């Protein structure tokens, strides 16, 4: 008992600084700097709206991450369900009073910036399920009640997000949730069965999709069927990336983005611009940076004593990985176009807020890795 108390006792401020994961921190700073440079390029080599806005978001959210890092991860455990419920309420609020933009209703106006609660749900679902699997007994993991419960935890936010409508984010939320189920020990056969069920019901799901969503899938299968319409984005994106070559066209010299051929170059297609200007070398470099970040997060999870920390770190690492894979596959023409930002790189406050919170929790897990959570 004594031992546990010493382990669980609060670390001093200097101890916390000592325990900080600096490799991860440096990688995040590096990523932030790259994202600022690329944003500067999307503004046509000038410090305009997007660069300023991205900088100010970094300026707010980076300190927030450090602040969270110094918080004990225990508090996140304590308030995980509450946090989840809060986001559900926000989603509920958005579905009634949210801001509309280009046909979907996802945002709420917070005066200082516009918040997209579905982005925060990506973190909340990990926290919520991490706590659940931290607390549940191993024998009960595969009980019917447990399975139904966790599935409802995943499905409730997804219903809100899909109705916004936002297919991309809901898929990402589902993936983040399912990975915790996997890590938590849900039997492999359930995954296999549900995957088979999914495949069988796929035609029915497609029939429920909105026309523009169907169009995206068709366009993905054959981008040339409507090169100036639905296929335009993916064709131009591939042209930009492909024309970058080994070394790229050079910083601020990407003709595709400079001449406005790239759609949504600030947000979902930011990698396209980066890849056009910095080429294969730059792209692989960026991927390596992301890989290091993911690896560090997994390492922290592996070092953590508490299962909550483990589950969160592994889950968060996986979701970062999934965001990157979905985004890159999309711009590389490997997946249909679903709105999904590239962590930190893409312009957009809510996504960055969620990612920074996640990093903060991970850093906190590192600092408090020896702690157990009751």
């Amino acid at each position: 008992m004594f031992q546990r108390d010493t382990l669980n006792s609060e670390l001093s401020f200097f101890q916390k600084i000592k325990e900080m994961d600096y490799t991860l921190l440096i990688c995040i700073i590096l990523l932030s700097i790259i994202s600022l440079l690329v944003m500067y390029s999307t503004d046509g080599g000038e410090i305009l709206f997007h660069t300023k806005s991205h900088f100010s978001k970094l300026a707010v959210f980076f300190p927030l991450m450090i602040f969270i890092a110094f918080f004990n991860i225990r508090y996140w455990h304590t308030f995980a369900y509450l946090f989840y419920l809060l986001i559900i309420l926000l989603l509920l609020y958005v579905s009634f009073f949210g801001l509309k933009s280009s046909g979907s209703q996802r945002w709420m106006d917070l005066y200082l910036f516009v918040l997209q609660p579905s982005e925060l749900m990506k973190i909340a679902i990990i926290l919520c399920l991490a706590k659940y699997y931290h607390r549940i007994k191993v024998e009960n993991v595969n009980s019917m009640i447990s399975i139904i419960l966790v599935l409802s935890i995943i499905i409730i936010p997804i219903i809100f997000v899909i109705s916004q409508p936002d297919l991309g984010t809901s898929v990402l939320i589902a993936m983040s949730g399912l990975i915790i189920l996997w890590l938590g020990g849900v039997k492999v056969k359930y995954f296999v069965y549900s995957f088979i069920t999914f495949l069988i019901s796929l035609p029915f799901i497609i029939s429920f999709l909105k026309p523009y969503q169907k169009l995206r899938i068709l366009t993905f299968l054959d981008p040339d069927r409507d090169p100036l319409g639905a296929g335009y984005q993916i064709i131009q994106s591939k042209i930009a990336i492909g024309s970058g070559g080994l070394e790229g066209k050079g910083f601020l010299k990407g003709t595709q983005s400079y001449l406005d051929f790239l759609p949504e170059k600030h947000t979902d297609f930011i990698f396209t611009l980066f890849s056009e200007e910095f080429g294969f070398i730059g792209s692989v470099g960026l991927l390596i940076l992301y890989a290091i970040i993911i690896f560090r997060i997994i390492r922290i999870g592996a070092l953590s004593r508490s299962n909550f920390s483990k589950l969160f770190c592994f889950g968060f690492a996986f979701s970062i990985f999934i965001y990157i894979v979905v985004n890159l596959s999309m711009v590389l023409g490997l997946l249909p176009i679903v709105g999904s930002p590239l962590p930190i790189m893409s312009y957009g406050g809510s996504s960055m807020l969620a990612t920074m919170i996640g990093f903060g929790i991970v850093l906190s897990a590192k600092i408090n890795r020896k702690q157990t959570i009751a």
Partner: protein
Amino acid sequence: MIKENLGIRKSDVINRRMFIVGAAKIIIFTGIVARLFSLQINENKKYLTLSDKNRIREWRLPPTRGNIVDYFGNIIAGNLKVYQLHIIPEQVENFNYLLVRLKTLLNLSDKKIQKIVDLKNKLKPWDSIIVSENLSWSQFLKVNNYLYDLVGVKPVMTISRNYPYSEMYTHVLGYVSQPNEEEILENEIVKERFVPGMKIGKLGLEKTLENQLIGTNAIQRYEVNAYGKRINQLEHQKGLQGSKIRLTLDTEVQKLSAQLLSNKAGSISVMDIYTGDVIAMYSSPSYDPNLFLFGISQDDWQLIRNNPLKPLINKTLSGLYSPGSTIKPIVALSALENNIINQNFKVKCTGKTELYGQTFHCWKEKGHGFVSLKNAMKQSCDTYFYEIARLLGVDRLNVTAKKFGLGEKVLGEYFDNEKRGLFPNTNWKKNNLGRGWVLGETLITGIGQGYTQTTPLQLCLMTAQIANGGYKIKPKIIVNDDPLTLKDAKNSMELQSLQKPNTRLFNDSKNIKIVQEAMFSSTNEQFGTSYRSRIDNPKYQFAGKTGTSQVKRISKRERELDLKLEQIPYKDRDHALYVAYGPYKNPRYALSIIVEHGGSGSKAAAPMAKELFKLIIDRDELRDKQSNFENINI
């Protein structure tokens, strides 16, 4: 403790499952890197090309046509700077407002406005629409004054075809105008170089020499953004002007021809009898080709179309006329060559000849009495030629006529409206009319009536080949790379006739001489039909033959009435013809004149020859000096 154990077991599960996920992550990341590799390294070239295709757009400008110059280097088809008004739709803020403004500024018609709207819907937003192709200076100033209000309008200075001698050369040069779709597709070069605003030859040499005259496009390359807006110019590639074409024509002679034929319908052709150079070729009346450059107005078009003198027809090449008495030198030559007659052969003319109950009249009712070949030619006695034609037969006459170029195109491929004409023989009639030849037809063929149809240029060539001693020449209107000097032409002519017997058109040069002398007497001896138009100065002295070709059969009553020219309706009046060559002592030029419905050849046509020979022979020396193409600076 149990709880602890379970906890450890749980973390084992977590770690094990994490390991599986981690392996999957590495595989997926590798996949993404592979995809990047295939796009950026393997297919880099393909995407680089696509990216350039995206951002670089070419604007081709209309090519500048080559100049056409006369023999002396005067530009007869050149290029002028013109002011145009273009609209660039993508830059226009309010299209309807702009149209209303332009309509009032330039007095555009509703039809024109509709045309602009149609074009706007058809073209890409960065393609300019030409509102007005040829703004007057005052209109140009007006537009420039209001330019601040006309967003998207661009005043442009461009180059347009120009014919400084207006109607003088229309039938030779033709004109250029906007091509239609068919014309663009027809010609590969035009198809390749076509840009809106480009004009192509529609007629005459402008059309047949299109591929030489056209020139190449200037190209401007711009970097454009995704909306087609020009960001900056990358390069400007100058176009090459089309080839310069030098014609054999002499503007001064052409000018005089136009003057002589003013207010008349007819044609004048002048040819060098050795080189075959066409020195003048004018068909009257003509029209101003400049009217067609920017689309002719309905009023102007109707005026040209409805003119009873038919300006649209190139009479020199497509006008078909009975040669009348101008054929007589050939008839006489044919009879001599076939040994039907000799120069002393005489016929008694009583004013008419009876044949199978049909009466064939001589133009002189009282008759010429006993006439020799020379006198028959001099006074154009019809009875004499009825008789020798009868003796000769149409088939032998046809052979001689064909040799001298009747019934064949003169300038060949250069003019697609040139007619072949017709010189009949018995086979022709059987094949084409299905009936046998009648002897009476031989008689009227002998005086150039009946089925025979010739173009004025054919008559000119025929005369030239009699004048040069009976050698075949190749008429030309374009100076080729090695223009023949007179001496060269003469030498090569004799030389060629030795090598190629078919360029010698006679059996016995004495016969040519006899015909030449007869033609001389017709102009220079008393009672000759063109005696009044003679020039005594041997420098200008010429020999010729008049012709008067009937447009319709003269009825008995009309013959009795013997009406004056003015009393006959214009359409029924005879065509007046004259063929001549000179100077007689040392011949150099041949000409043919035809005045439609001008009455008799001696009164209406021959006097023109006098004027022409004076000018042509005065310019002879100048022309020889100009025979070297390279010395001419244009």
